[in-house]
């Protein structure tokens, strides 16, 4: 139980600076990152048969044996999930006395996860990795990794490594680091499990573990607002989990199997039940994904978490919601491969897809609107996460809506998942660095930081250009694919999606405006006096950020790489029309005049919104309190209770005025929905508990008479 022994001062423990170039932690971790990148590159190049790396490996006996052993290892998924947990044990055992060795353990465990993930690539290219473990959790759990899973695994593990490198430096200023890294490890393990799940039960299992483990990350600051945000987060998470659980029960009961391949044959004949199932699943995963009506936890939870955690929450964990929707929809609601285009199964998918598109559009709009109103950088980024998730969800919607022609939406959604993971975590890291150096996260109080933090300013610019969708950066690629997708939805589908496209453009412009605002207020402008003394030195924060920025630019310049390596194999394994995929996806040309012109319009509109908004103070709107759910539900309830009590008992009304008044508080920050519910329960309890206990004989008489009469009546009927 030595885990928290040094709690409270762990991160203030002296960071011994070793002598020499390779002694410094920054250099060491940078080398690890470099090694990971080179290894990834070599492996992918090797497996694709270029440069003869594979034949080199095959020639040397020992290497060949090891290689063959590793790529045919069936328990690779379990190994990958176990690594972070091993890391957790490792850091509990060895990392107790030194932050450096603890963080090295964390970084190395992440590195090993990447390496083992890579060894699945050859198998994934052929038929995927499948592993079933029967009898656990009654129904048995199973893992299965296909190209979709592998893509998610790659982006997750790479990003996790970088964030861990970042966290080493950042967490020096936070408390309880050991706890942070322990739960980071558990969350990582759960995230990997969620991605590799081969059936809904496994997915649900790891999803729940992730919810509970990441709660500890959200609440890490242990301030009053983190408790509030955490309360929101965990209860929304539980509700989402229950929704998935119910869907799982319905599915298991009707289909008898939860594996991600089944259900096609029987689901088509289910009638309304299939809509219930997908509806519950979309709701459940949508909560995690920050989908519009149920996004409320996200803007509260992400800003209060320590920056490495919020980078991963926004970069990876909300994607798992989208991944879940994509996974269940494509496996349960897609027809089997090779069936002709007119498969009746598509009809369901079509209906579900159009609903999801609109949900995505609403999510985008809500996210951007609120993002423009924020002054706190991290809150603004959190709202942008919602908005960008809207893009992804919309892509998924198009992928479902258009049936076998939906490949464009699918590609866009996956591409945007990857891109958003990169630039949003980078932006959060930038916010973290700014906070790390200045202790301020209100953008209106910052300014001119580009002189002091040139590298941060550069990567922030890159990320901002990425998220705004400027050509030559990664966001442009996925946004134009998504734009193609929504145009196709209009073209092949319903005319109403013309308006969806218009909203899409306006929202992209809003995003541009929002990031102009961010960059202008934080890095440009005149610098306030108190920040003139900042003297940053090169450390891990910069390594991590620079690497992500480089990847963003790399993707922006080589859009086809991700497309051919990761996305096209997925599309080929899906029942999409192969002709369509060949012509429009493989043969897709980026940087066409049309796309560039659209982008130009968006950028000009963005500048317009920014200038207009600052001129007329449109970025500080207040939302009226009476629009909130708490107020609408509990204020009338309170009124009714109080008046009914007055009416019945007059002055002897027993309610405690004070508690009741709290119910009707107008301020929602102080007292949330659940708090009000608890107060209601209290009022109810005070009123009825004693009375109920005292009326035992009465209850008995009423009950027995009731039961007897009921039975007689039912029998007579």
């Amino acid at each position, binding site marked *: 139980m030595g885990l928290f022994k040094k709690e409270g001062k762990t991160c203030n423990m002296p960071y011994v600076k070793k002598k020499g170039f390779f002694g410094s932690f920054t250099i060491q971790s940078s080398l690890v990152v470099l090694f990971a990148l080179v290894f990834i590159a070599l492996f992918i190049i090797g497996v694709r048969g270029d440069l003869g790396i594979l034949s080199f490996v095959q020639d040397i006996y020992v290497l060949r044996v090891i290689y063959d052993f590793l790529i045919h290892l069936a328990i690779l998924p379990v190994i990958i999930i176990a690594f972070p947990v091993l890391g957790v044990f490792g850091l509990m055992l060895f990392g107790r006395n030194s932050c450096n060795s603890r963080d090295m353990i964390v970084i190395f465990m992440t590195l090993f996860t990447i390496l083992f993930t890579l060894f699945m690539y050859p198998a994934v290219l052929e038929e995927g990795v499948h592993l079933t473990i029967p009898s656990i959790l009654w129904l048995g759990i199973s893992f299965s990794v296909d190209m979709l899973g592998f893509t998610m695994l790659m982006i997750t593990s790479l990003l996790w490594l970088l964030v861990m490198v970042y966290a080493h430096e950042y967490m020096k200023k936070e408390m309880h680091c050991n706890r942070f890294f322990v739960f980071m490890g558990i969350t990582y393990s759960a995230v990997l499990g969620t991605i590799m799940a081969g059936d809904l039960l496994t997915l649900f299992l790891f999803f729940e573990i992730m919810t509970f483990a990441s709660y500890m990350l959200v609440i890490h600051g242990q301030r009053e607002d983190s408790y509030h945000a955490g309360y929101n987060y965990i209860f929304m998470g539980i509700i989402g989990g229950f929704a998935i*659980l119910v869907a799982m*029960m319905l599915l298991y009961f009707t289909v008898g199997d939860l594996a991600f391949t089944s259900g096609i044959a029987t689901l088509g004949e289910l009638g309304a039940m299939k809509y219930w199932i997908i509806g519950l699943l979309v709701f459940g995963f949508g909560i995690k994904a920050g989908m519009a009506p149920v996004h409320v936890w996200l803007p509260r939870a992400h800003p209060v978490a320590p920056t490495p955690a919020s980078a991963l929450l926004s970069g990876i964990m909300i994607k798992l919601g989208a991944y879940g929707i994509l996974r269940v929809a494509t496996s349960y609601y897609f027809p089997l491969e090779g069936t002709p285009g007119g498969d009746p199964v598509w009809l369901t998918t079509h209906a579900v897809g159009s609903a999801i598109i609109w949900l995505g559009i609403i999510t985008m709009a809500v996210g951007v609107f609120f993002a423009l109103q924020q002054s706190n950088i991290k809150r603004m980024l959190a709202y942008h996460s919602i908005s960008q998730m809207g893009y992804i969800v919309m892509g998924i919607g198009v992928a479902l809506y258009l049936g076998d022609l939906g490949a464009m939406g699918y590609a866009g959604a996956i591409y945007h998942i990857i891109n958003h993971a990169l630039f949003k975590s980078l932006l959060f890291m930038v916010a973290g660095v700014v906070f790390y150096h200045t202790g301020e996260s209100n953008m209106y109080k910052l300014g001119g930081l580009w002189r002091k933090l040139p590298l941060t300013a550069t990567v922030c610019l890159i990320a901002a250009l990425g998220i705004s969708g400027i050509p030559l950066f990664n966001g442009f690629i996925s946004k134009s694919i998504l734009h193609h997708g929504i145009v196709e939805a209009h073209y092949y589908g319903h005319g109403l999606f013309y308006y969806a496209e218009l909203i899409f453009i306006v929202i992209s412009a809003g995003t541009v405006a929002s990031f102009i605002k961010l960059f202008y207020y934080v890095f440009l402008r005149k610098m306030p006096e108190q920040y003139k003394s900042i003297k940053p030195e090169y450390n891990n924060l910069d390594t991590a950020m620079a690497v992500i920025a480089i990847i963003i630019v790399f993707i922006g310049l080589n859009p086809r790489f991700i497309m051919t390596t990761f996305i096209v194999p997925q599309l080929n394994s899906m029942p999409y029309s192969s002709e369509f995929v060949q012509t429009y996806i493989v043969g897709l040309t980026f940087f066409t005049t049309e796309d560039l012109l659209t982008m130009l319009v968006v950028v000009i509109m963005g500048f317009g919104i920014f200038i207009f908004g600052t001129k007329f103070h449109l970025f500080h709107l207040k939302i009226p309190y009476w629009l909130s759910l708490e107020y609408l539900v509990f204020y009338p309830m309170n009124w009714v209770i109080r008046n009914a009590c007055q009416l019945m008992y007059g002055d002897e009304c027993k309610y405690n005025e004070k508690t009741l008044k709290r119910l009707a508080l107008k301020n929602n920050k102080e007292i949330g929905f659940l708090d009000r519910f*608890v107060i209601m*329960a209290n009022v109810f309890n005070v009123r009825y*508990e004693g009375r109920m206990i005292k009326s035992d004989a009465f209850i008995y008489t009423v*009950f027995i008479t009731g039961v007897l009469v009921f039975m007689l009546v039912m029998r007579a009927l």
Partner: protein
Amino acid sequence: MITQLPIINLLLFLGMALIIPLFKKRSFSLTTNLGLGVLFLVWISSIVLLYHVITEGAFYYQLGNYDRMLGIELLINTFSVLFSLFIVSLVIIIYIYSTGDATEGVAEKEYGRYYILLFILLFAMLGILYTNDLFNTYVFMEILSITTVSIISIKRKKENYTAAFRYVMLNEVGSLSYLFGVALLYMITGYTNIELVSEGVQSGWSLYPANILTAIGFMVTGIGIKAAIFPFHIWLPDAHSTAPSSSSAILSAVVVKVYILIMIKILFRVFGIDIIQAVHIPTVLLVIASIGMIMGSIFAIAQTDVKRMLGYSSVAQIGYIVMGIGMVSMLGLQAAFFHIFSHGLMKAALFLSVGAVIYHKKIRNVNEFDGIGFQMPVAMFVFSIAALGMIGVPLTTGFISKLNLGLAALDAGQVVLIVVLIVSGFLNALYYLPIMISAFLKDNKDQQRVMRVEKIPKTMLVPLVVLGGLIIAIGLFPGELLSLLEAAALSLT
């Protein structure tokens, strides 16, 4: 020899209760060790019996070799043996805990009496499970309620007396209702042996429907009071919260379940599915179960005393079990049986961990739990595991119960029950999570945040860890237990 084991088990418990006073002058540890020995003997014999019943089939045991028409008959089948094994195993864990806990709040000279009562309690519970006779069941039930009353009032405090008095009055009403039902059945059939009564009831259903109907009504209501099914839960929170922690665990985890098992026996073995469906008892059960699941949790949310909160939580959880019964299907029964196991483990873990907190820190109010997780990590970890189980998080037994109940509800075509299940799970989260959060994440002003294993007797720590481990182990691998429970459900019909 094996066929004699049931009666030997009963006599061992009774004998143990009788010889405890003889050791009054000796060291007290002798008594507890001897008691532990007896418990282990019965445990082993229960395992032997279970194996025997599974391989060779059920058997009857005639007490004193009287014919079943006249004398008492014991029926040893999978149902009775499996649940007696469950009771004995759980009681062993709680018993070991109670030796360390010093049965909090009990005067030292009462220790002997406490253990006497405990063994009589066990004797009665095993008797109820084994017996194949309605009147004999009543006798054991009376023994059980009188011992329970004594255990509740052993603390010699005013609130204990009030709780015990309320308990005894209500339970007497329940017992008498049950007895009235038995009398009505005797009037029709002329027997009290369950199988003979069952035959008589089946053939007399068309002749004397009113009698049988009244009998069902009174018996279900009577046992409903004793099992604390929702509108009759009123005695439970006070009784369970004032009793010493280890006996609260026994009362909530085991004793209440025994009454539910009697109800199952009566509904399925005496009346049979056809009759109870004809008079719509399942509907009644489902309705009161659903209301209980919601209302129990709502009352629990408002409690400040942690043991009262756990008591109300028991009310809600009993609703789950009754819901499984009310579905009147194999799946429903299996789910109800599984929840008896899983709730037994979870509630025992909760009461014992809270008992450890009360023992060590003298804290009962839920608002004072800030930072307890650092001072008592083991107790609070076990508490958290059990509480997560109550919410229905996967990897715990609670999840498997919820899954089973949900599937059974779908099988019975009652989708609305799933909604109740989910709402109830959410309400559970509403009162368990804040305790966990304040225990592990909030700072206590007086104590520094250093996590160190609490200094409470090892005999209290080990049972806690075992319970926590069992919750996770059965949650991970429920397959074996579920197939055993299926056999038990089959042995009822």
